[in-house]
C-alpha cells in the first residue's frame, strides 16, 4: 500500500508539472522572504545591541545608589560615586578590562540665542572615554574634546536644530547637586554623527572636570562604564546565544561576600533559565561602603563572558572590595 501511495504521489507531482512548478516557486519565494526578513530583523537586533555597547553603556556599568536601590534607573546627581575617577582607575587596572570611563551625566538645557533645547549632558574624560565608547570616532565637524577646555561636543541633530557650528558659543543651563541653578558658557568644538540616534539627538559632551565644576561635584561620577578586552567587541546574535550560562557564577553567591552584602536580581537567584542576551540586564549592590553603594548593570554580560566566563563576576567582587 505504501508503494501505491508513493507512486500516486509521484504521479501527482510529475503529471501536473505546471502546478508543481507554481507550488514549488510559491514555497521558494515564501522561504526567501522569510529568510530575508528574519535576517533583517536579526541584523537590526544586532546593530541595536552593538550601538548600546559602543555608544551608551559599555559592557558593564557601575553606578551608585545611596539607598541601596539596585535598579537600572538612569543615574542622577543625587546618586554619584564620590571618588568616581579613582574607582574608575582601580577598575581599569583589573585583568581583562580594556577601559573604565567615568561619566557625570545630568539634565541640562542648551541655549543658543533665543533657542533652547533640553539635552542629556555628559561630562566625559576626553582621553579615557574613547577606550570604552566609539563616539570620538564619529566627529562630523570640528574635533573631539580636550581635558580642561571649556568646550562642548554636540550630537549632530542638536547642532542642526540650534544652528550651531564649531566655534559658536552655547550656554549650558543646569542645576548643581545642591539644586542651585547654574549656567556655563562653552565653545562648540565639534559635532558627532554616530550610528546611534540617541547620541545624535540628545547628548552633549563636555570635559569631566568642567562638568564636575559646573554641577559642584568635584571628583565624582554618576556612572563608570567598563569595556572588556575582547577580540570581537561587537558580538553577533549567534555568538551571544551560543554562550553557556556563566560557568563560574555561583547559584547562591551571597556567602562568597562579606556580611552586609546584598544581592538582587533574578540572575543571582536560582533561575538561570531566565538568562538571555537581552534579559541579562540586572544589577548587584554592595552596601560595604557606609557612604554609598555600588550598582552594577551587566547589560552585556555575555560580551564580557566572551573574554572569560568568570570575569564580570570577579570584577564585581574586586570593584566592591576596592571601593570599600
Amino acid at each position, binding site marked *: *500500500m505504501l508503494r*501505491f501511495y508513493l507512486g*500516486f504521489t509521484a*504521479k*501527482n507531482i510529475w*503529471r*501536473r508539472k505546471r502546478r508543481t512548478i507554481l507550488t514549488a516557486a510559491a514555497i521558494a519565494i515564501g522561504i526567501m522572504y522569510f529568510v530575508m526578513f528574519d535576517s533583517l530583523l536579526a541584523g537590526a537586533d544586532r546593530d541595536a545591541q552593538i550601538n548600546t555597547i559602543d555608544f551608551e553603556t559599555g559592557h558593564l556599568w557601575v553606578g551608585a545608589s545611596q539607598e541601596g536601590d539596585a535598579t537600572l534607573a538612569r543615574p542622577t546627581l543625587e546618586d554619584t560615586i564620590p571618588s568616581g575617577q579613582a574607582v574608575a582607575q582601580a577598575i581599569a587596572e583589573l585583568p581583562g578590562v580594556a577601559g573604565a570611563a567615568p561619566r557625570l551625566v545630568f539634565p541640562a538645557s542648551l541655549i543658543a540665542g533665543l533657542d533652547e533645547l533640553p539635552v542629556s549632558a555628559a561630562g566625559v574624560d576626553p582621553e579615557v572615554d574613547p577606550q570604552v565608547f566609539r563616539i570620538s570616532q564619529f566627529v562630523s565637524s570640528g574635533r573631539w574634546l580636550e581635558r580642561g577646555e571649556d568646550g562642548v561636543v554636540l550630537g549632530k541633530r542638536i547642532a542642526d536644530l540650534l544652528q550651531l557650528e564649531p566655534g559658536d558659543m552655547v550656554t549650558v543651563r543646569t542645576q548643581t547637586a545642591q539644586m542651585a541653578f547654574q549656567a556655563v558658557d562653552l565653545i562648540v568644538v565639534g559635532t558627532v554623527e554616530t550610528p546611534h540616534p540617541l547620541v545624535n539627538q540628545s547628548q552633549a559632551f563636555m570635559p569631566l572636570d568642567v562638568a564636575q565644576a559646573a554641577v559642584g561635584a568635584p571628583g565624582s561620577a554618576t556612572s563608570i562604564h567598563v569595556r572588556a578586552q575582547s577580540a570581537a567587541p561587537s558580538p553577533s546574535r549567534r555568538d551571544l546565544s551560543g554562550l553557556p550560562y556563566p560557568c563560574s557564577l555561583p547559584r547562591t553567591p551571597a556567602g562568597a561576600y562579606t556580611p552586609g552584602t546584598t544581592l538582587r536580581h533574578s540572575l543571582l537567584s536560582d533561575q538561570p533559565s531566565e538568562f538571555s542576551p537581552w534579559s541579562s540586564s540586572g544589577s548587584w549592590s554592595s552596601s560595604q561602603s557606609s557612604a554609598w553603594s555600588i550598582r552594577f548593570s551587566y547589560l552585556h554580560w555575555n560580551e564580557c563572558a566572551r573574554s572569560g566566563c568568570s570575569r564580570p563576576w570577579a570584577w564585581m567582587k574586586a570593584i566592591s572590595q576596592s571601593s570599600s
Partner: protein
Amino acid sequence: MPLIEARDLTREYSHGRMTVPALRGVDLDVEAGEFTAIAGPSGSGKTTLLNLIGCLDRPTRGRLVIDGDDVAGYKPSELAGLRREKIGFVFQTYNLVPVLTAYENVELPLVLLGRQTHSEIKDRVMSMLSEVGLAGLENRRPMDLSGGQQQRVAIARALVKQPRLVLADEPTANLDSENSEAILALMKTMNETRGATFLFSSHDPLVIGYAGRLVQMRDGQIALDERR
C-alpha cells in the same frame, strides 16, 4: 433475502431551527440482479436514497440492510469496508482521478482491496476495459477522453471488483443521447452478463425505459413501484 432491505428509512436535514425532511419513511426491497431506476423530479429524494444505500450518509431513523448486513450501528471504518467490498459507484461527473490513466483509474479499487497479484490485476483491468469498449485507450488520461468514454471508465472502475451492487446517480446526465444510450446498453449488458445489481437515479425517460423496475419518488416518499 433481498440484497437491499430498507424499512421506514428517514433522512432529515437541519438548518438552524428548521428541519427539512428529504426522505420520509421509505420502505424498499431490491433483489439481487435487478436493474432498477429511481425516477422523480429534483428534490424528490433520489440522491438522498442512493447516498443512504451507498453508505455515504446515515439515516435519521429507520433500518437498512445491505446484503445481510444491518448497517445502522456500523462505524465509519466498517461502512468504508462495506463500500469497498460490495458497492460500486458511478457518478454524474465521472469522478475519475485526473492524474491517473484510464488503466490506473480502473486498477485503483483492486489495488485498494489488495487481494490480487500485479499480473492478476492487469488481466482483470484489461479485460474490463475491453468489455466497456476502451481497448487501446488504457494509457489515456481523463482529459484526453470524451464524456462517454470517461463514463465507461467509471463503469469499468465500478465493476472491476465485481461488487454485489452498483449505484449510479444520474449516470447519463452529462452525456448526449447517443452516448447515453450506449452507456445504458453497457450497464444493461453488465447486469445481464455479470449479474450485478444496478440501482440508478434519473429523470430521463430514455434511461427509465431501460429499467426492469421503476421506483418513482415524490416528496421524499415512494409514489410508484412497478416491475416491468
